[in-house]
């Protein structure tokens, strides 16, 4: 059985499952994305170019790329951001969380639960719901546009901070929009909580960024559900990527094991750091302090959206225009590691710079390639448990399984090969 073009995922990929004599022989997530060679292009570029270049790996989570790149390069150059600049970065990132989560919830994922092919069909019957989703998404984009200049590949992010910091009065109108959005976000949690969720529990190791003082978004160390914790600089020692022949995708392994990053991991590891309102929303939606059911990731995303809207409101309320828009970044040779929590999971960057500030080598580990092994694992289990279903139903189920993870194939593409034999 082959599902030859996956819909409602970012990027284009295919799923192939081979069943021989009632046994699942292979379950593969093939990604059609042709390689774009970002790590190669980055060699010899100035460090200042990395945020803009890596943003182009993914149009869905450019801020994540920009932020992880900045974090890594700032570490390599030995600078730390002024506190207000870190906060502004977090605000920008909240915009991406709101917008990307809402995109996934309303336009990509919810139609699965409600039996529609897409949000437009959903809007036919429930226009108000889709309009609410679009308004919420728009509020996220409004943050991105105001601070970043535009929602996709913002232009205002630089290593060391920003090109221009908005004034307090420029930010003020956002508050109004976000106040309305907060209500929409809470309604969204209530809405998705009514969906029917198959009973599934994952036993993978979950890995997420963790920050002492706040729900980790724009920076942090790493912690895992098996108790392992490490700093971004130790990431390469723990996470190893293999180029596996059966799918030609690079699969990342944590200390030799399959693992999962993303909303479930964040929630399970950090849910106590959510705001009281977000926690209450989660509770009302039937979530405990942890969540291992991938179908419920839609609820976790909705809860995180509540948090991101609230967080954005809090930051705007306390905002004072920073004294300077960026910290000067002297170039020096060195290696830096940076990470942040992209909407889909942990995004790690590593750069080696020479004394002139040129990039000697770069490596990027996006969430989708970290999760791929686990996704395929799940697929195999789902198929094995549902062999009785006929092909169309099984296909739908597999697609849904994949969409639970909101895999971003564009992100993964620079690791993947198009010319897989298909038959």
């Amino acid at each position, binding site marked *: 059985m082959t599902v030859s073009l996956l819909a409602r995922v970012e990027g284009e990929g295919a799923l192939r499952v081979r069943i021989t004599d009632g046994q699942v022989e292979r379950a593969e997530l093939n990604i059609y994305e042709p390689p774009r060679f970002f790590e190669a292009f980055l060699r010899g570029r100035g460090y200042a170019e990395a945020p803009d270049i890596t943003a182009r790996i993914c149009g869905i989570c*450019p801020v994540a790329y920009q932020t992880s790149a900045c974090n890594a390069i700032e570490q390599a150059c030995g600078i730390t951001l002024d506190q207000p600049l870190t906060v502004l970065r977090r605000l920008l990132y909240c915009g991406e969380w709101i917008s990307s989560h809402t995109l996934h919830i309303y336009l990509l994922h919810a139609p699965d639960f409600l039996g529609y092919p897409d949000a*437009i069909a959903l809007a036919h019957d429930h226009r108000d719901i889709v309009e609410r989703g679009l308004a919420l998404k728009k509020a996220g984009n409004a943050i991105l546009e105001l601070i970043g*200049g*535009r929602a996709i590949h913002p232009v205002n992010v630089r290593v060391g901070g920003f090109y221009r910091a908005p004034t307090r009065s420029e930010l003020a109108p956002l508050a109004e929009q976000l106040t309305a959005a907060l209500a929409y976000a809470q309604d969204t949690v209530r809405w998705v909580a009514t969906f029917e969720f198959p009973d599934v529990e994952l036993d993978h190791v979950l890995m997420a960024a963790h920050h002492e003082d706040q729900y980790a978004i724009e920076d942090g160390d790493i912690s895992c559900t098996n108790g392992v914790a490490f700093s971004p600089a130790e990431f390469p020692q723990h996470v190893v990527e293999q180029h596996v022949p059966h799918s030609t995708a690079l699969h990342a392994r944590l200390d030799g094991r399959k693992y999962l990053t993303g909303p479930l991991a964040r929630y399970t590891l950090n849910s106590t750091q959510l705001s009281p309102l977000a926690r209450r929303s989660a509770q009302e939606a039937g979530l405990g302090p942890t969540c291992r059911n991938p179908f419920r990731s839609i609820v976790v995303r909705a809860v995180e959206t509540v948090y991101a809207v609230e967080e954005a409101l809090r930051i705007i309320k306390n905002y004072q225009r920073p004294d300077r828009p960026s910290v000067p970044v002297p170039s020096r040779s060195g290696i830096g590691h940076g990470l942040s929590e992209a909407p889909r999971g942990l995004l790690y960057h590593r750069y080696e710079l020479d004394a002139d500030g040129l990039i000697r080598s770069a490596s990027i580990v996006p969430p989708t390639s970290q999760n791929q092994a686990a996704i395929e694992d799940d697929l195999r289990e789902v198929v094995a448990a549902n062999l009785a279903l006929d092909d169309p139903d099984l296909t739908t189920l597999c697609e849904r399984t994949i969409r639970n993870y909101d895999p971003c194939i564009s992100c993964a593409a620079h690791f993947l090969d198009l*010319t897989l034999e298909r038959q």
Partner: protein
Amino acid sequence: MSTPTLAVWKFASCDGCQLTLLDCEDELLSLAGQVRIAHFLEASSAVQPGPYDVSLVEGSITTSGDAERIRHIRAESGKLVTIGACATAGGIQALRNFGDVAEYASIVYASPQYIDTLATSTPISAHVPVDFELRGCPIDRRQLLEVLTAFLVGRKPDIPDTSVCTECKRRGLTCVMVADGTPCLGPVTHAGCGALCPAQSRGCYGCFGPMSGANIPALLPQLRSCGMREDDINRIFATFNVAAFSDEAEKDQG
């Protein structure tokens, strides 16, 4: 008149340009009322067979399979509009056109023998005739709506092929090159973004590619006097629209 159909296609790209369509929050549902979205994998699992009245194509051609696929799409499409720097100019991945692909593959892949890819990343127009090319990395939302509306009503899209400076001044911004000494590619870059970068006190880095007839050599001395080194200058032109800027610079030489 039957409802026109719209299809959205993807080649090597970041998805940002097609996401722009979903970012039209205010217009999305009314657009869906005007056209039947017949093929848009990022947004829908309902796929209807062609032909399509308008096809939006994102991404560049980097594999032989894709070169074949775009021909089919062309055959199925009334109007074919390319969206973004990848589809219109080959995108950042066109840097490979100037380097060694085998070496690139070995940098990214542990087992490069699995990788089969064309040595070039080329725009859609290098393979099939294109009805309209929308610039930008990513495209601008208002421009996308303008092109869609224009094609729906049969109007010529109002997408001026002029400099970013004209937008910068119409917006009432202060020139960052003149007033701050910040290098800016606005004078040679195709308008469309609304002068986003100067609005953030930043010089334009050319993500919309060159305007027609851009006089790139004339800008170079100014970039130097704003403190750019020769290799900085080479790199800034060799990013998201590398192939288009190098074509335009060649025209200036010739």
